[in-house]
């Protein structure tokens, strides 16, 4: 789960960079950049949850 979380963080960054490089009008570019941030937040939640689970297993 932790690895998936970090991969999502990287994927979100990729979306943001792609939006900047490929889109020219302000609204779609901003929208896709925000969507990329959303993916990053999802990745961050996964990493956090994996640490919580790991801590729970260790007691």
């Amino acid at each position: 789960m932790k690895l998936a979380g970090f991969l999502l963080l990287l994927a979100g960054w990729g979306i943001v960079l792609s939006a900047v490089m490929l889109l020219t009008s302000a609204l779609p570019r901003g929208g896709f950049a925000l969507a990329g941030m959303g993916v990053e937040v999802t990745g961050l939640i996964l990493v956090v949850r994996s640490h919580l689970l790991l801590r729970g297993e260790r007691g």
Partner: protein
Amino acid sequence: MTALSVPALSETGMALCILCILLVPFAGAGLAFVNTGLGRSRSAAHSMLAALCVIAVAALVYVICGFAWQGFIGRPAHVFTVAGKEWNWIAAEPLFLRGLPLDGSPASLAAWLQMLSVGLAALIPLGAGADRWRLRACCLSTALLAGLTYPLFAHWVWGGGWLAQLGVNYGLGRGFVDAGGASSIQVVGGLTALAIAWILGPRRGKYSLEGMPAAIPGHNAVLVLFACLLALLGWLGLNCAGAMLFTGAEPGRTVLIAVNTTLAAASSALVAAVITGIRFGKPDASLSANGWIGGLVASSAACAFVTPAVAIVIGLVAGTLVIFAVEWFELRMAVDDPGGAISVHAVAGIWGVLAVGFFAHFPSRVLNVVSGASSWSSDSNQWVAQLVGVATLLGFVLPLTYCLNWLLNRFYPQRVPAEGERQGMDLYELGAGAYPEFATYTDDFMQR
């Protein structure tokens, strides 16, 4: 739009810049005292020695290889081209001190400032790893930060890298703007602190078997509050020097920067005191101190481009964020961060970076030289440039710093054994306590 170029500094500007850089070590002293005061008394000497060691390691590693990868605007760099746009991703200076400019030029002042700033960034994770992070591991982790993570991101922001070029290449306002290092110093340090806190795990006795956190208060509130005043002095220097060197701010603008920095810290500390007063019945000294530092951190990015009223707003939001983030990390995320480093530096720093996109107004001269923007450049897309910077911090810097520290932990376990925590870091790693004349008793290690 034109290419990025070196900011011109008059003789007055140069003298003022040198004076400001001389103040920066006070910020380091402030952070070291905050970390020590918020830790346990039996780890106080260890905490101060660790601070000294990481500043030393950071400075050495940075001048040996860090500056070679960070560079400065207008100096050699590796560039690749995507769809006709240049992406400047890393500097191409010679390693081992050979490329270090020492001629009094803006590049040499920037190298000097960076040598001190990287120490500041390296002090931040010490707050999160307090009472359980081995001294040698602190130094090794700092070497990774000063040699790789920090120079890479700082090049993108301050060395004419691709983040700074977002305005030139893609019309995103003036490109990613951060005058005093809210992102490259504070958030990079704060995210490294998060990685360290995750890797080390919480202190023994911090969480019960049911997952409820126990309060382990800092051992010296006076030291922590005094450190806030020291940090203000350092931040004034950091923000003023950074704004002049990296955004082309003229010397006269330092008055506005100093006023904004002070107002952000003041409003942030006061709102923290008020919120803790309302929630707990009395103001909390350590959280108010965290609020003060959080205000300084948040002020760094936008200090040269906002009005004093906006600086107060930035401080108010930063203080509120810090208070709730400290609680959120401790209660919800089970992250044991004795110094509040993650909330103060990462959370408040990200807010400060975003605040540039929401509130900054760039005068016609400021930034035009450094960012390559023409006088007609629109600032309407500035928030997207700032968002790209935040996305890079979370999507690239956090995985990178976690991965580096995780690998280090595989080869050299970073956490002290249980016996070390029981004895205290002073006795276990240094052989003597910071306060040998005081006998201390604690039941932190009683089975709950």
